[in-house]
């Protein structure tokens, strides 16, 4: 298309303003010296200092990061296997059920996923805490990881794999020496997305956690219920910054991958 009409430019500007103004306002007020949101008391990093002294919040953040690390790794391994199964193993028995189970958690209301996993853990009489939340997060982010890897596998030159097999490489060696090096940017992006999903989740973690395992979103949720405070704005700003870095890194990886693959 050659030229953008004024209507389309308006749609772009209005759409992105709607998406970004609330976040920008939130970030701006984290630097407000005044406690009142109605008053601009000048620029200050006071609330970031207060945040650094908030032990429960820092503990929760550290727990969330460890949890996201483990669950993202599990989700990426499982999601990559699932993507390989769907892309390479053709019509195996139960394929429809399998692809349904991979993709359903993407849209399933979180309250249902959370409740059902909790009931599983209670029935199995597992002690709830770090590991139950990790399993829950790995399960629901597996589908996201699978989609990212699957889209890379779809645009992949299979003759390379076939050449390796013809030269006598076993499927496992073919995977490690040919397939994985070619899809790794997608695998890395899948890991980052699973990581941020886990870091953000409130509902599923609330259901599947136990005493002593309070995640960052759970702490923030109880703080938000009490009202608006610049300290929460500061915490949110740090989280937004971290997520933005990860997403930009992931999209650069995928872009380089697409350029290399094209």
């Amino acid at each position: 298309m050659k030229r953008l009409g004024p209507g389309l430019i308006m749609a772009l500007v209005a759409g992105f303003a709607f998406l970004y103004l609330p976040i920008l306002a939130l970030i701006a007020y984290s630097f407000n010296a005044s406690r009142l949101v109605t008053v601009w008391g000048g620029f200050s990093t006071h609330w970031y200092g207060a945040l650094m002294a908030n032990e429960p919040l820092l503990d929760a953040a550290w727990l969330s990061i460890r949890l996201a690390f483990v669950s993202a790794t599990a989700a990426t391994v499982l999601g990559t296997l699932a993507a390989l199964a769907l892309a390479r193993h053709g019509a195996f028995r139960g394929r429809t059920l399998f692809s349904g189970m991979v993709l359903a958690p993407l849209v399933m209301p979180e309250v249902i996923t959370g409740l059902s996993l909790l009931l599983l853990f209670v029935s199995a009489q597992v002690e709830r805490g770090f590991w139950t939340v990790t399993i829950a997060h790995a399960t629901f982010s597996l589908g996201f990881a699978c989609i990212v890897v699957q889209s890379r596998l779809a645009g992949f030159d299979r003759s390379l794999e076939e050449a390796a097999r013809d030269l006598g490489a076993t499927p496992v060696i073919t995977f490690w020496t040919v397939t994985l090096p070619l899809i790794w940017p997608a695998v890395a992006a899948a890991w980052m997305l699973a990581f941020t999903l886990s870091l953000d989740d409130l509902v599923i973690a609330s259901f599947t956690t136990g005493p002593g395992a309070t995640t960052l979103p759970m702490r923030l949720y109880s703080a938000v219920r009490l009202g608006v405070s610049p300290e929460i704005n500061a915490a949110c700003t740090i989280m937004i910054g971290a997520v933005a870095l990860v997403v930009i890194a992931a999209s650069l990886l995928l872009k380089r991958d697409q350029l290399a693959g094209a």
Partner: protein
Amino acid sequence: MKTGNGPAHRRGHLVVAVPYLWLLLFFLAPFAIVLRMAFSDAATDLPPYAPHFQGFSQLGEFIAALDLENFRLLGDDALYWQSYLYSLRIAALTTLIALAIGYPLAYAMASVPRRWQGMLLVLVILPFWTSFLIRVYAWIGILRPEGLLDIVLTGMGVTSEPLRLLNTEAAVLIGMVYSYLPFMVLPLFATLQKLDRSLLEAAADLGAPALTAFATVTLPLSIPGILAGSALVFIPAVGEFVIPDLLGGPDTVMIGKVLWSEFFSNRDWPLASAVAVVLLFVLVAPLALLQRARLARGGVA
């Protein structure tokens, strides 16, 4: 592809088996337990809520012990079916508003030069990856009395007193549309981007005005994207908890919140399970629609 034999072949099966077993154990089995739990009686049982399934020889006794009380309550108590209807209404309104905002946005994104499209795409996805909680919190600051919106509107002289939008249905809708907009824009953009522009040129060459060309060519061809986007917004919106809880008020009771409070406040696990089972049945039709839209677009959601 060559089919291996011996250990290599068995390892090939592992690729399917490992994620398959994981999902059977942590996705499908939990639903079976929810279903079972929904037929238990909270008053007489304690977790894990007997009776357990003892095998097919005792199938008769097992069925006889099932308790329909929870579902009867869901039908009788107006709170429950009204909150289902209310959730459907809010989800439908959210979907329509998101479509009205998302379609022009996706259309404009698909129309800019290709080298910009990647960056715009990242810009749409970025807010999606920041937590729900943060996005909802941002709107609390804007909508609350004497919040940002009030400051701006009174400053411009549009209103003289606070709008009191927080804890209303309007606030819930704003929060929902805001949170789910990327789900609508992404599939729409994917469809519109792939659209064959030469069809539009052909329509123009044959004398169709731009609006006619849009209505007869672009719109019908983007229906798969509209369906996929609508399903991606509608399905999670029906069961949404965080947004109605933080932005809504006493009269915006959505079913996700009912489930949450049955579980966490009333500690009635069987009733919470029954709420979840009915919610799943409500979502079967839109889920089937999503699956069809995905198949029509070649597999990847």
